[in-house]
């Protein structure tokens, strides 16, 4: 592999959950400093900062756009460029594509990717209304009253119809993610157990989705550092994570315009990524795929070839994606149990993929010998299906 190949060399993360005493900018600089240190770089060596947006506050979002982070990190006149990439829940995938292109082309040397969100501490009703107002054509379809939970419900209803999955099968997806979250000290639900009976016993919110099948809005922050492979070697890095392949599909804006609500764009996104990687879904050691509702995850698993069509939920029920299962999936607990940190939910999954491939997920949750990860993100009303295939390699 060439010296210019982009690789992940460090990460940082703050626990997800409700942390009203943790300010937004404080989370950003802490997680950024942690990631740079983890990469064995000094802050002054970062020449490009890519920002993942926040959704809790237009004012904080404006701070991000207008380079407050650069100033807070003491990088005035040191950083070449700082800007935001935004595609909702798939932002992390598109940000990594951007970072990779900058490094490969020589336009950036060391890239710091930063994300923080305060969804867990912001007024819930305001956040839900904001989510509902966006991603739905306001002139034509907002008047139907479709809510954000209903978008997940439309996907789940169709997925269950096509696959014959039962409510218990779908509940088992949430339970598997909770089992993973119980192993993750940074997860919102690190201490709380969940059973299929509890899920099925919770109140129906938006048929067919019950209360315990809805993601909880959370505060959280992640950072990633990328550089070139040649530079990683110079830094004395032993193990790094490379991007073996990538693919994507923007399938719709409005969920009302998605032709196959039970499938989304995954089948279109996957093949190019696997072809570039030279390996297939059967070779994956772990999967980290967007999961704000159970069927969003099962459609991703199936569309990316990690389960036969229609079988993913039943395989969850058999424990195949749980700790100790055949294909460890969403090993941080996912959005459903680590916490829905807005745009950051996808970033947290990607960070977990990098952490696992660096062999640093801790004794309880590290998947032994994990070298190949299938990572997937989706934004808005699951408007796109983005896949990054990551590989842990020696520098």
């Amino acid at each position: 592999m060439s010296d210019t190949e982009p690789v992940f060399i460090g990460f940082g993360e703050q626990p997800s959950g409700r942390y009203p005493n943790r300010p937004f900018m404080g989370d950003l600089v802490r997680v950024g400093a942690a990631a740079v240190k983890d990469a064995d770089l000094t802050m002054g060596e970062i020449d490009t900062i890519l920002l993942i947006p926040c959704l809790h506050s237009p004012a904080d979002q404006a701070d991000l756009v207008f380079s407050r982070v650069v100033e807070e990190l003491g990088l005035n006149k040191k950083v070449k460029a700082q800007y935001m990439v935004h595609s909702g829940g798939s932002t992390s995938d598109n940000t990594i594509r951007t970072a990779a292109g900058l490094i490969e082309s020589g336009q950036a040397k060391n890239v710091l990717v930063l994300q923080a969100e305060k969804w867990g501490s912001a007024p819930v009703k305001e956040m839900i209304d904001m989510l509902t107002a966006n991603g739905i054509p306001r002139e034509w379809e907002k008047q139907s009253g479709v809510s954000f939970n209903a978008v997940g419900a439309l996907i789940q209803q169709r997925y269950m119809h096509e696959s014959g999955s039962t409510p218990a099968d779908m509940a088992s997806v949430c339970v598997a993610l909770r089992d993973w979250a119980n192993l993750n000290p940074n997860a919102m639900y690190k201490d709380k157990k969940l059973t299929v009976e509890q899920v099925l016993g919770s109140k129906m919110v938006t048929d067919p989705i019950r209360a315990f099948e809805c993601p909880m809005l959370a505060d959280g922050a992640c950072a990633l550092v990328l550089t070139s492979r040649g530079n990683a070697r110079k830094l004395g890095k032993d193990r790094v994570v490379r991007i073996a392949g990538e693919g994507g599909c923007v399938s719709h804006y409005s969920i009302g315009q998605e032709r196959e609500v039970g499938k989304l764009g995954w089948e279109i996104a996957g093949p190019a990524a696997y072809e570039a990687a030279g390996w297939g879904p059967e070779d994956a050691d772990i999967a980290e795929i967007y999961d704000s509702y159970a069927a969003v995850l099962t459609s991703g698993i199936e569309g990316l070839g990690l389960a036969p069509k229609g079988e993913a939920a039943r395989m969850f029920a058999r424990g195949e994606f749980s700790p100790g299962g055949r294909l460890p999936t969403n090993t941080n607990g996912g959005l459903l149990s680590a916490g829905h940190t807005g745009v950051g939910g996808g970033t947290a999954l990607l960070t977990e993929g990098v952490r696992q491939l660096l062999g640093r997920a801790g004794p309880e949750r590290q998947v032994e010998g994990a070298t190949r990860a299938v990572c997937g993100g989706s934004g808005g009303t699951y408007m796109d299906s983005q896949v990054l295939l990551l590989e842990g390699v020696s520098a």
Partner: protein
Amino acid sequence: MSSSNDIGMDALTEPYREALRRGEFVVQHCKACNRDIMYPRHLCPFCYEDDLSFTPGATTGILHSFAVHRVGSPSGFEDQLPYAVGIIKLEGDVQFLARLWPDAEGDWGQYELDGEVVFRAADADEMAERPVPWFGLPA
């Protein structure tokens, strides 16, 4: 629901909403390539001409998926609970979100995916407040 985001939209939205207030359902049609379009666009998304007008939509469609709101709704829909929304597919290759009338049991348990649904207008007041097509089970 007017805001700076809606500037200049009236020419496009009003004929559609006006039809709903009359109890009729129309879809956009491109005369240049003879295709139906939903939701209405500024240029035809197939041929990029702007020879667009509204035409009566098919009143029978297929239910692709649906969701029933029981707890929680966007602001302004609290008094509508419970209510259902569905994705309706029509002949002519158009689809859109619609409200679903309750079934004979007063719930939505009789709806089936890929089953037939028919347009049945809500009253003019409802259409004035929330202009969106309503579909129900065939009589």
